[in-house]
């Protein structure tokens, strides 16, 4: 029983990490007033670029880096449409999702051919952290994981710190609330928004690579399977807060882990029901059952100072 629980929690950490990475990425942009619902698309692109990068170089880290850059590049399109051209963010996010699905599918077929079995790629495998992995309970849950989990554990407090303890973080929080006021104190609202969006794309690309290179070790069409949207739900349940996002990601990750277990344990529950769990949780989360007044930034992506009259 004890072992069962440990294995379950370790699996939950493993499945929650991509959600957390993406959510931590989307967090800054959301705080700055622009939520990119194109996470799914950027993760898909990250997933294929990661696999391809690792396939050609034999190094999963290079793959992950390329995946992140591809996410950042994709988000640049979104940033241009929303910040510079003043387009409506949800529509652009949807476009990014469609774009991501198409591009990743095409890339996969071009690189690996159609209907052939996927090649073996170098992926992120489990590494035990010296000493820490020997800890009771925590050791097997947290420190016998793949390296991207450790990366996430390290950057989480950094992201929290930047948001709440630095001048940049204050600017990000302020821009989302009242961009006009920020302009009057000399803050460049556009560059803050570009920066946060592109950073978000970078993280989503990394999250995509996690799915294709740490959770699994190959690419299949549409393999992100809604994780980008779940990451958005994580963000909402976590109240646009890094620590809140951690809690929410673990919750959703646990949901996914439960799903896997139900599928393999043959409890007689039709597996379709098990597969529903993460998505049902997302719906519940977004309907506001977990927490009542969900924070959203006041400006909600309305472009600033439209009427400079020039």
């Amino acid at each position, binding site marked *: 029983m004890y072992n069962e629980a440990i294995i379950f929690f370790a699996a939950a950490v493993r499945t929650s990490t991509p959600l957390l990475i993406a959510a931590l990425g989307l967090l800054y942009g959301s705080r700055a007033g622009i939520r990119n619902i194109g996470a799914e698309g950027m993760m898909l692109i990250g997933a294929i670029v990661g696999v391809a990068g690792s396939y050609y170089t034999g190094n999963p880290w290079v793959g992950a880096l390329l995946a992140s850059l591809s996410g950042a590049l994709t988000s640049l399109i979104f940033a241009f449409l929303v910040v510079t051209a003043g387009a409506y963010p949800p529509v652009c996010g949807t476009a990014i999702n469609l774009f991501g699905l198409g591009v990743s599918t095409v890339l996969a077929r071009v690189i690996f051919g159609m209907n052939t079995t996927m090649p073996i790629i170098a992926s992120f495998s489990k590494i035990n952290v010296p000493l820490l992995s020997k800890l009771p309970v925590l050791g097997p849950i947290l420190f016998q994981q793949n390296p991207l989990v450790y990366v996430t554990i390290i950057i989480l407090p950094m992201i929290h710190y930047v948001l709440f303890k630095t001048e940049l973080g204050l600017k990000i929080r302020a821009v989302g609330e*009242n961009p006009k006021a920020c302009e*009057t104190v*000399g*803050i460049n609202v556009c560059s803050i928004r570009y920066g946060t969006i592109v950073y978000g794309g970078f993280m989503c690309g990394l999250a995509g690579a996690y799915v294709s290179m740490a959770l699994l070790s190959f690419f299949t069409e549409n393999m992100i399977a809604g994780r980008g949207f779940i990451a958005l739900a994580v963000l909402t349940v976590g109240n646009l807060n890094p620590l809140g996002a951690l809690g929410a990601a673990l919750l959703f990750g646990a949901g996914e882990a439960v799903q896997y277990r139900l599928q393999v344990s043959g409890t007689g529950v039709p597996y379709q029901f098990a597969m529903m769990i993460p998505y049902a949780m997302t719906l519940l989360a977004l309907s506001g059952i977990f927490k009542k007044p969900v924070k959203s930034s006041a400006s909600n992506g309305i472009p600033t100072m439209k009427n400079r009259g020039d």
Partner: protein
Amino acid sequence: MSTKLQMKNICKYFPEVVANKNVDLEVIKGEIHALLGENGAGKTTLMNILYGLYSPNAGEIYLDGQKVLIDSPRAAIRLGIGMVHQHFMLIPSLTAVENVILGMKSAKSPRLDLQEAAARFSSLAKQYGFNIQPWVKVSTLTVGQQQRLEILKALIRGADLLILDEPTAVLTPQEVDGLFIMLKKLAIKGHTIILITHKLKEVMSFSDRITVLRGGSVVATLKKEDTNPEELSKFMVGREIIEEYAKASYNPQDLVLELNKLSCNSDRGLEALKGIDLQVHKGEILGICGVDGNGQTELVDCITGLTRVTNGEILLNGENITNMHPREIIDRNVSHIPEDRHKRGVVLAMNLIENIMMMDYYKPPYAKGIVLQWKKIESRVDNLINDYQVKTPSSKEIMNNLSGGNQQKVVLGREMTRDLDLLIAMHPARGLDVGATEYIHKKIIEVRDDAKAVLLISTELDEILALSDKIAVIYGGEIMGIVTPQVQIHELGLMMAGAKKNQTN
């Protein structure tokens, strides 16, 4: 005496609106220069150009004799220009100190050093007699406190040319005096101040020179000594302004609004109203006077259903409306001119039609079933724009593009042209020019002469005294007493500072 600032031949056109046309403005170092003009004359636009928020279509700016290019607020701040905007540029969910240092670099940059900032904040606040704590959330500050925070924000950035766009609109008389004493001090130290205001009294007592704008152009630049309020209002609106209003004799009739032992809590959970008893009759204007933040906001919110009453009751025409839904209260013919037009009065991103119809769009004759009757709606909106002289290119203009005073006129028009039994007017003339102020005061008196009840809440003593039939003084959430407009100002002042009305008189 050297010239600090010279704006030459500034032109600014918006679609369908000429906001500034060939404006020349010269400001001398160390002076307090007043910028006057009616609503929509282009004052704010001119100052936004100087602060780098708008780029002009033509014209040049010289600072200390040097030609400068100000293409962003950042450039303006670097050149030592500070601006306190007409509408607050604050972030409600952040603390006071976070707002003040937003965008500034500290010694520990890029780390945020809030402790050090709070210390500087407090010492500056103390120096200028501003009573604001650094760690409070801005959303819990009163309008007056927010204004002071804005001034602090400009000062902490070390501006030596300070633009203040209607800074006194929301301050109490005592605070206004305090502010001007401080501005004088700053001017003596060599700061230059440009002040936009609609209050001629302030102009006459505190400014050195005056520039009047009309329809986007300069009509006069004068020394204070060479002019007088009558002449200034003639320059501004083309006629003289009366300040005493004709009123029908005071003849209160049936009781309309009755408050019994009304209590409620503020946003911060403190007791904001402590058992208020008040009555307003038909044909009566009851003025509520007091220093900002003594429960006025909560009082209005209770009556309009915007906050929960914790104790006591509110009767409207004999019916208990305590804690009713705001729409139910609106439907009982209660009109409300809110204190903060941006927060509660208008939706800035919507156009005039939508803003004006906000409460009535679903009612006949403006709607038949689910179909809007555009002819009826347009005729109401056009009449209102005409009657209230709202300066706008069309009824489809979005609110955000109107000048501050014209936004206020839209709110006033909407609230006063509905069927009404009770008018709750909070700072109704805030931001209005002298002509519009006169007009709105006359309208409020008309409502009263028409045998309606009016509850007038204002921090402007002149306004309260000129309009009210009875005056209730509020302090710390309690009514200190009810007096007539013939009261001694001195006695009123004491009551506003918390002295209960003397029982013997």
